[in-house]
């Protein structure tokens, strides 16, 4: 079943175009990583999906039009915008009571269970919690909601590595199942690569790359080339090259260059490519060249 379907999704803020005709289809049970440079339109796209912003084009999320039916949609979908959106004055117990009061699919016992694993006190106010604890609280609230779609926009921004790892671990182990769909936008690509089932690059309001992780892993390989093979390797037209500890690391697109793994193995050590490297290869040079030009400001 299709969870999110967009056709020709457009959004402009004045003269800046944040979304420039996006076509998107996310099936149920997928974990999609939405990756893009700052101001690429990630947040705008997510806001449109969540009914937080009006848009042009067609968009259907869980069978609803998000802009006109946000409150209905939020029974089946929920989102964590970033770590700082829980109101600072609210007490942990009040947050639980409130969500239990307004959300028909919230299970307070489940939330209590998640909170029991943390050091968060029920009487604390959010302002007294550390950034990591606020995220834990928010995650506990969200995971206790039996939703079909969870949208995360930079959920771990500003958290240390322990909290970040714990965040994705509990999401995968305690929450995700194949009836749910997760869309996550983030910059911390390396940490979520193993979590994703699909990946999508977005740049200047357009989707510039999209594939499933199975395809990604069979298609993109990185070769740590032995010094004597560098020239031969470059002849195979790698899509990106970088230096690691004095050795060349070349990224190949097997499909594009009609290569196979055996051929590359003769050139050096072969690894599965990382999303981050492909991202840099796809967008890095462009971003470096145009770094001084402000563009596509998506709040």
């Amino acid at each position, binding site marked *: 079943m299709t969870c999110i379907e967009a056709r020709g999704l457009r959004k402009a803020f004045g003269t800046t175009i944040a979304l420039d005709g996006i076509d998107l289809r996310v099936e149920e049970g997928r974990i999609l990583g939405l990756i893009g440079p700052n101001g690429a339109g990630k947040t705008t796209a997510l806001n449109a999906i969540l009914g*937080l912003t009006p848009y042009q084009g067609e968009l259907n999320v869980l069978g609803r039009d998000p802009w006109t039916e*946000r409150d209905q949609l939020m029974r089946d979908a*929920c989102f964590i915008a970033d770590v700082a959106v*829980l109101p600072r*004055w609210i007490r942990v117990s*009040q947050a639980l009571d409130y969500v239990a*009061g307004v959300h028909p699919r919230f299970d307070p016992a489940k939330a209590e269970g998640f909170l029991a694993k943390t050091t968060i006190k029920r009487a604390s106010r959010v302002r007294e919690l550390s950034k990591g604890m606020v995220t834990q609280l928010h995650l506990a609230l969200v995971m206790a909601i039996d939703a079909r779609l969870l949208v995360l926009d930079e959920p771990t921004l500003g958290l240390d590595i322990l909290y970040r790892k714990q965040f994705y671990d509990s999401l995968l182990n305690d929450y995700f199942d194949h009836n749910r769909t997760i869309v996550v936008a983030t910059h911390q690509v390396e940490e979520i690569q193993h979590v994703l089932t699909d990946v999508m690059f977005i740049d200047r309001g357009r989707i510039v790359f999209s594939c499933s992780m199975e395809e990604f892993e069979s298609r993109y390989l990185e070769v740590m080339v032995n010094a004597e093979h560098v020239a031969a390797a470059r002849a195979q037209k790698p899509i990106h090259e970088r230096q690691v500890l004095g050795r060349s690391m070349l990224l190949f697109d097997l499909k594009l260059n009609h290569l196979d793994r055996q051929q590359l193995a003769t050139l050096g050590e072969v690894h599965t490519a990382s999303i981050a490297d492909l991202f840099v290869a796809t967008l890095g040079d462009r971003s470096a060249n145009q770094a001084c030009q402000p563009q596509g400001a998506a709040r």
Partner: protein
Amino acid sequence: MNTQTDAVSQSALDSQRIAPAAMSETRPLYWSVRRELWENRSIYIAPLAVAASALFAFSISSIVGIWEKPLRLNPEQPQAPYEMAAGLLMLTGIVLSVFYCLDALYGERRDRSILFWKSLPVSDVTAVLAKASIPLVVLPLLIFAITVAMQWIMLLVSSAVLMVSGQSVATLWTRLSFFQMSMLLLYHLVTAHTLWPAPIYCWLLLVSGWARRAPFLWAVLPLLAIGGVEKIAFQTSHFAAMVGSRIIGNAPAVGFTGPDMFPTDPMTHITPGLFLSGPGLWIGLAIAAAFLSAAVRLRRSQGPI
């Protein structure tokens, strides 16, 4: 009989089963109002504090008064201190409403918590109505309850002081028609302090949902500008007088009260029919509704600032 009970319990079970999906419409509203009270504790703390101060002052005055004039009671107007205390609470209610409304839709955008509220299945209509209900329902009722409770304690304090000083409490109790005072207070709060100033509160809510900074200035400056233009162009100040009367609850035709009389004076002759048939009330309410619906639209499209 038995089958009937079975059927009833069966249908009760069924309704329980579907209850999560079909949550009643009023539940999110109820919890949204509660959350407003959690966030803005001054809504009940401030009137309680004012009432406590008034009680304290009244007790001092009663005790000190024993040795001079008994209770400093004006036999013609034994209700004077009660009215003064009630007036203080009404003023508190106005001040609280104004500041609450100015922050209601602004604060949640400034601290980005609007993204959290919007991640829950609460419609913007419900959210804005919950916020509007604070000045239009919650505060009037709260002020009424606190005022009545305070006046009862005042009555008990003065009775105790009278008894201790060996005077009769009968005069006090017969001269004060408590029930009538309370009913008049409720009437006055609903008419003059809720229905009449509704457009002002809704205007403040609208501005707080629109302004990206300094909602107070944005709320006040247009009013000052209109008043100023009118003053310069026509040398009149109808607009300023109108806004003023709405804020302080000086509604016409609520009742006939003497110039020095407080609205809860038992001599007041209330005229709800006249008040309800006046066009001013309905024009005001229509404007209030328009402001509110604009505030709902704004909340739907506005994000954090």
